């Protein structure tokens, strides 16, 4: 189930690109706004954004003379896929914890 992830993982393996991705997850931003939040130049931000766009993780739209960057908004399936993974891991962890818990109900506060 990881086979589709190689390209995207590579893109987000770079700490700066990951930081940009996380900022865009909070809200859409311009290059200038991103540069203010990060210790890199606008030109460097633009280069990273180009890579993220080419990889399909980010899209941009024109707003007058500004260009607004945001995460690829096809987030419905993305969110579901993410939560599916969360629950699979969580239920496995719960199963282990339940089996390991003491059998005596009076032990719960110990």
């Amino acid at each position: 189930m990881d086979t589709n992830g190689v390209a995207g993982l590579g893109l987000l393996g770079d700490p700066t690109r990951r930081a940009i991705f996380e900022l865009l997850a909070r809200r859409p931003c311009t290059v200038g706004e991103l540069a203010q939040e990060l210790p890199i130049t606008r030109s460097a931000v633009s280069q990273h954004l180009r890579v993220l766009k080419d990889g399909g993780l980010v899209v941009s739209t024109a707003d007058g003379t500004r260009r607004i960057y945001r995460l690829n908004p096809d987030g419905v399936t993305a969110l579901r896929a993410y939560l599916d993974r969360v629950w699979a891991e969580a239920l496995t962890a719960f199963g282990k914890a339940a089996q390991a818990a003491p059998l005596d109900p009076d032990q719960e506060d110990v």
Partner: protein
Amino acid sequence: MSSTPGIPPLTGTVTVDVPVDQAFRVFTDAFGSWWPAEYHIGQADMATAILEPRQGGRWYEQGTDGSECDWGQVLSWEPPHRLVVTWQINGHWQYDPDPAHASEIEVRFTADGPDQTTVELEHRLLERLVDGQALRDGITGGGGWPSLLELFAKTATNQA
């Protein structure tokens, strides 16, 4: 209002070799002991997560710096057989306080025998999470990258 077509609910099942009341107790009272710590939304690392044992109770994480971030609240508290909570963490990894944007998680605990319990989980109304996202405004998705957030989660986890 629901501008997004329904998203199929997520379901999961696990069978544990413990009595039903114990399964319920571990799931709820001991929630913070088994929830994978990398899945949290606070700025600080997660110290624990707490599910308050009553209808209307909070479901929240506590950071290592003492900060708290809500995840949702308890809608139904029916020990030891049923639990319904809201999940109000949207695609921006933020808590959305608007009840109209709350997805729901129902967990059912069924005794298969005196020492075996099946736990069934359903996470539904996922479309409500997306309705709350300004992210979607003005853009129609092209059907591209279904595992975007999954990738992001993996990366974040690997880098932790």
